[in-house]
């Protein structure tokens, strides 16, 4: 549960600030978190694909955005395109946006790797959501892989019947894949009936009086950690209001400087991250 909070705080953080040094500090914290959970390799594997997306994003953004005064190149009469104008401002902006996105995606990846559905369910119960809703969420998470397997089999079936799924352009492919949808749906319907049969015969009702096999227990360190997270977020919001951690890109690019106050805050961000991780470790359950 604490993990959930921490990741969430990073998520907000990445939107608040666009100062590269701040973002870097944040990213380092996330990496630390993944290393401490021994998921660094796995997380990097998933991130690999995203890097490609980021590169494309940078190119497109810098080409399309013509704002800004710090010009790199400027041609006024290019055929077809009209004016071609590449500015430092757009390039830097694209870099920063990508970096922000990278952090968001990375926290999602870590969310997937670090938090398992049972824990999530227990957290949701702790937050006093109705159990029926929680069960719905967990069931859909539980059956998602099965759905994938179904889809795989259905694809194989159609391929074995001589249906060329990977032929033609993008839209043709999409249309061809519709063939898979109906059996998938029929199968899921059948499955949902069976699941509800199983629920019913195992005494599941909406009425109260249900107990829970494993619940999350809060230890002192967890409470402390949550307090730190809350403090961290409010501190950051305050900092944002005061005007820290931002820098000007448009219309005139002013290269970010690391002021005295930043020099104090940056290490402290890393420090907070490290403390959080230390609190999480040590046999902690959640």
């Amino acid at each position, binding site marked *: 549960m604490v993990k959930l909070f921490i990741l969430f705080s990073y998520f907000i953080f990445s939107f608040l600030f666009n100062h590269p040094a701040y973002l870097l500090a944040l990213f380092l914290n996330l990496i630390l978190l993944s290393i401490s959970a021994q998921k660094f390799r796995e997380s990097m594997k998933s991130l690999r694909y995203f890097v490609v997306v980021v590169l494309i994003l940078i190119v497109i953004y810098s080409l399309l955005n013509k704002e800004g005064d710090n010009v790199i190149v400027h041609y006024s009469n290019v055929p077809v395109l009209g004016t071609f104008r590449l500015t430092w401002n757009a390039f830097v902006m694209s870099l920063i946006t990508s970096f922000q996105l990278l952090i968001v995606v990375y926290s999602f990846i870590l969310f997937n790797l670090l938090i398992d559905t049972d824990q999530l369910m227990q957290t949701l119960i702790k937050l006093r959501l109705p159990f029926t809703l929680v069960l719905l969420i967990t069931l859909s998470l539980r059956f998602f892989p099965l759905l994938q397997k179904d889809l795989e089999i259905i694809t194989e079936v159609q391929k074995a*019947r001589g249906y060329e799924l990977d032929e033609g352009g993008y839209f043709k492919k999409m249309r061809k894949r519709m063939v898979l949808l109906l059996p998938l749906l029929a199968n899921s319907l059948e499955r949902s009936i069976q699941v509800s049969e199983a629920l019913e015969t195992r005494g599941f009702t909406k009425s109260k009086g249900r107990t829970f096999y494993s619940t999350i227990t809060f230890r002192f360190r967890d409470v402390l950690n949550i307090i730190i997270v809350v403090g961290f977020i409010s501190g950051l919001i305050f900092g944002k209001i005061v005007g820290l951690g931002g820098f000007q890109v448009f219309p005139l690019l002013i290269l970010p400087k690391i002021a005295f106050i930043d020099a104090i805050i940056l290490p402290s961000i890393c420090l907070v991250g490290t403390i959080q991780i230390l609190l999480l470790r040590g046999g902690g359950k959640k």
Partner: protein
Amino acid sequence: MISMKNFSFQYNNTKFPAIKNINLEIAQGEFILVMGKSGCGKTTLIRALNGLIPHFYGGEVEGSVQIKDTNPFKLGPRKISTMVGTVFQNSENQLLMKNVDSEIAFGMENLGYAPKTMEVQVHQIAEQLGFHHLLAREISTLSGGEKQKTAFASILVMKPDILLLDEPTSELDPLAAKELMELLRVLNKRDNKTIIITEHRLERVLAYVDRLILTKDGEILADSDPKDLFCSSEYSKSFSPPLIELFQELKTDYPDTKIPLNLIEAKNSLNNILSLLKPSKKSDIQETIDSKPVPLLKLDDISFRYPSSTDWVLKNLSMSIHSKDFIAIVGKNGSGKTTLMKQMNGLLRPQVGRITYLDQNTKNKTIAQLSRDVGYIFQNPSIQFYQDSLYDELSFVLKNYGYKEKERDSLIQESLDQFKLYQYKDKYGRFLSIGEQQRAALATVLLLKPSILVLDEPTHGMDIQQKIEFMEYLNIYRMQGNAVVLVTHDIETIAKYAKRVIVLSEGRIIDDGPTHSVLSSHEPFIPQINKLVKQFEELPNWILTPKELLEVLRQ
């Protein structure tokens, strides 16, 4: 324990009652098998006992049901769940949680047990069923047998007096099925649980039950001790597993013969008969293999692993398939059988080694091209249907291969006639019975006249009549010079039909040869009759089926 009086039930939107005039008295501690053809109302009967009728399935109820002197219709699911536990056919779809331990605890949570008690109970049940090592595992990583065990444990932990199991062994290999039945016997004898199961593979369960209920068209046709039932009812003959089939036949020659339910009784009965006969000479089997078989598909030293894993599923495996082959591939759950089958039509491609069809490497052929030569029938036939009617389903395949409308029409007519499906041509595939669905799958695949037919567990869920019918179709196809390869746990069926058997273990072929020599020598795959025959010196030890034994005895 259970009492049903004049019970009838009709689902909403149907014309006929699914079960009618059911009168049943079941005492505590009985072990009952409900049998009947597919669609005879077995599952409905189970639903009436566990409260799904009428709590879950609306419909019209007549008559009364009493469980432990209470009317289950007036109780909520919570109360019923402590009296009656149900294990459904498909174990995958009744597991709801992520981990094994939370799955087992789920029922107790619903009943409001204290967390401490639950923990103790979970560990106790795991100890009892011998899978303590699985408790922390994720359900998605379990094998079929382990999933079945988890589903069973999660029911058992709620301590119901009555256990209902709907075709519990259908997804299990012979060994796992035996383990499950042994466990049920213990629960029945030691804990005095009332157990009611349905099953098509009688050879797996008959030795364990002490009462048989035979249903036909929603009514109870016979209800008695298993022996009496197989002696008296002519209708029961269409369900007889091999051992009983043998003695039903022998009874016509020797009227005093007792019908045995297990091997020991069978040995005694056969002993009596053999003492009347002069010990026949040991005759040798002549397993005729076509003198000049044409090699069709060759797998040459292939190895395969899934991209996401480092474990090799198939290891240095070589085999060839010839025309007129009828090959059965057997092996435990997880030995790589399905993976091997998928190599044959290119659904999966080996990383090492090569596969040739008529001496041409199949590497560069698409699945669609290969499917003209190698037809593939998947385990669950219903998953393939997506057109509104059977006719369109067949037409779809021909369209994929560019057939013109005229050609299509005549080919489809011919095929529907051949598989006796013409009357269903406008029906949606999923609404057909399992036997009809499998026939439809066969029709679809054979439209293209492939020379090899590959089938994954084709007899799954079929009753004996449906099996015989289906296997005969395969035989006809084979006699036309084609090859049949199938993967199955259904030993008794392949003992009758297969000409060659391959035993797969952990991705390797450990035996490959004529059916008689292979099946009679690999332990969990030995057919019942063969086990019986081996107890007698004077009988040839290659015999696998009742027919073969009868021939020898009647010489």
